[in-house]
């Protein structure tokens, strides 16, 4: 976790001071060094949550449930960063805060899906029921996301937007690429660090709840 935070600070410094400003997009492009890696980490978090849910249903080990929940929570937080940095960049570069582009739409729905996952967890009190139900939803979500992506992708390609919003993917100069790739690495470490922290907290809560229940009976 500490490593991730130091790395994050390092990324900010490198992105702002030591990476050249992109010619067509100007300083706004800098947000890319946060946005893309965070988006990657968020999608990683959601996939991990789905896989851990599947593992929970097969093994019925509490560990997997708590880890899946931690991953979903961290993923949702990262997705918020992704969905706020995106429009901030989109306004100056694309000329609009939001567009119903396939990738934007499917990440929005994925984000809402996992908000639903967390809401469901909150609404269930019994530990065992909560673990089972949220694992079922996690597995369903894992299968759903590719479906949503195909759907909105087809929707877009059948109704192309009159304005070309997406710039051609430029091959990044190596200075920018190094910044981006190290940011990817840092965000992955940050994700792992946050999940570990959140998981440790969940285990402590779990132990505390059991103690409390034991104290009453």
């Amino acid at each position: 976790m500490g490593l991730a935070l130091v790395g994050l600070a390092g990324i900010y410094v490198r992105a702002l001071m030591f990476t050249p400003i992109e010619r067509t997009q100007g300083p706004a492009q800098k947000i890319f060094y946060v946005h893309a890696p965070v988006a990657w980490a968020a999608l990683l978090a959601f996939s991990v949550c789905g896989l851990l849910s599947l593992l929970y249903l097969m093994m019925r080990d509490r560990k997997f449930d708590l880890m899946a929940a931690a991953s979903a929570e961290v993923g949702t937080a990262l997705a918020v960063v992704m969905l706020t940095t995106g429009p901030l960049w989109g306004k100056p570069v694309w000329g609009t805060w939001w567009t119903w582009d396939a990738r934007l739409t499917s990440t929005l729905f994925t984000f809402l899906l996992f908000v639903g996952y967390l809401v469901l967890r909150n609404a269930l009190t019994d530990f065992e029921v909560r673990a089972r139900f949220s694992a079922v939803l996690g597995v369903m979500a894992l299968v759903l996301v590719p479906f949503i992506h195909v759907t909105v992708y087809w929707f877009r390609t059948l109704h192309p937007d009159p304005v070309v919003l997406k710039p051609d993917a430029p091959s990044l100069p190596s200075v920018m690429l190094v910044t981006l790739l190290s940011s990817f690495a840092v965000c992955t470490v940050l994700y792992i660090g946050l999940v570990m922290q959140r998981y440790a907290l969940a285990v402590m809560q779990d132990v505390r709840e059991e103690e409390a229940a034991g104290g009453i009976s």
Partner: protein
Amino acid sequence: MASSSLFGTALAVARKDLKVEWRTKTAFISSLVFAVLVLAVLYFARDKTSVGDYDLAPGALWVTFTFAGMLGLNRAFLLERENHALDGLRLTPISPTALFLGKVAGNLVFLGVVELVSLPLFILFYDVPIWRQLPTLMVVVALATIGYVAVGTLLSAMVVRTRFSEVMLPVLLLPFLVPPIVSAVQLTWRILALRPLSEMTGWLSLLAAFDIIFFTLSLLLFEAILIE
């Protein structure tokens, strides 16, 4: 038990649900009136000079079916919650598979009848004389409804155990409806525009794939919801 086969049991569960529904008809009539109301309200939710009937109709139809279905699904397991009827069902030697199939069948009939009654009204209200395309449209309606009901039945069985089940169901279910409803709307406007079948195969196969995968998945996962 004579009807101990899987489908026999499933049929018995469905028949029980429909019989309970038939006795009162409250949920059915409410869903139907609701569907007609949504169709009628959506008709006015536009500027008629810039948005024509044909442009509005597909979306209106599917928004109506989505919401009417939500009402029906909420009812399916709320019925079981009263007097702990679900615990009673669990005590009987019914396999979760049979119970799931029965619940899905009951919901399909419920929603199917609501849709069958509102379709002609939709055609009249929106003045889209597509009587000849009606069989094609009904295939699309059937395909979308199967996927919808399969996922909806699974989720409503979970949601009924939470405190705010009526609000929770749409929140969890709507993301799952993106593929079937978007496909259905796309197919519906093509049908209304009298497009050839070749323009529909893509969306039809997406719809069919969604049905097969999510029906199977819901069936497999239902056991994890039910077993204590």
